């Protein structure tokens, strides 16, 4: 993401997102929120508390399952914390015109408020998540 543009209140033309899975759901986060992608062992060694998306957002009856988990070190204002995600595998540049707001009936659901948009991408849908709105920091 073009931080200069964002900080001056201007909307960027593109954002860069890291895509990953959480319990089978494809998500993307603005790389500007990520300070590092870490192995879980390294995160433990550093004594970082690890948070899980499913602790803050309900996944219903879905089973907690990770295939290739990593910890994302998230910058959130003056603080930082880690969030565990699965298969962080791709950094994608998204033109902002490709981003759609969540459909209105979903946007009205309190449980999904950390999702701020969605993108139709490679025959699928990526949900864009804002970790700073999950209430961890």
């Amino acid at each position: 993401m073009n931080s200069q543009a964002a900080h001056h209140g201007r909307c960027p033309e593109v954002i860069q997102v890291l895509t990953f899975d959480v319990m089978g759901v494809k998500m993307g986060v603005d790389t500007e929120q990520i300070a590092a992608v870490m192995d879980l062992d390294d995160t433990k060694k550093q004594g970082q508390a690890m948070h899980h998306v499913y602790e803050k957002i309900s996944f219903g009856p879905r089973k907690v399952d990770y295939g290739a988990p990593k910890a994302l070190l998230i910058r959130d204002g003056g603080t930082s914390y880690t969030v565990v995600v699965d298969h962080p595998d791709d950094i994608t540049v998204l033109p902002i015109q490709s981003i759609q707001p969540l459909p209105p009936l979903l946007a009205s659901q309190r449980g999904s408020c950390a999702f701020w948009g969605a993108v139709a991408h490679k025959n699928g849908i990526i949900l864009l998540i804002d970790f700073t709105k999950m209430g961890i920091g």
Partner: protein
Amino acid sequence: MENGAAGEKNKSDLIIEEIMRRKENGSIVDVEEKKVKVVIFSLCDDSYAFYGEYIKEILPLMTIYYVPGAAEFIPGVINVRGEIESVININRFLGIQETVEAGSGRIALAVTNGLRSGILVDSIEEVLDIPVGSIKPPIDTLSKSVREFVAGEFIHQDKLVTILDIGKIFGKIAL
């Protein structure tokens, strides 16, 4: 029977004229009777309908992408030619038993009051125009969870069809 005074019409003429007059009046009534389009669909072997003016498209069942945190009756979102739309499981929303058969449903894409969403139904039975006068208020025996969202009822092919009010359904979810 004989005719009365000269020039007076005979009985058969009078009868046929009366028949024609009544037929004409009847046809005028038919033409003027206001009709409304409905989309009839099935949920768990019962027939329901939406007003056709709110149904933009009928889609085949497609991949529904789960959205964490959404209400139980919103199974996720679909990609309709690049547009991302929510999907409502109307059975769950109304508290109606769900159909066991998987993969046989349809998605009705509905739009009203600036809100739009797909609505998962078991099958689309028919799209037809019905006289407005044939729509009656909902019967009291409907469950409260359903009655709140019912616009009316009508009989079609000897079956009761319950018209659901999409505006009320969307309004309740968007609250």
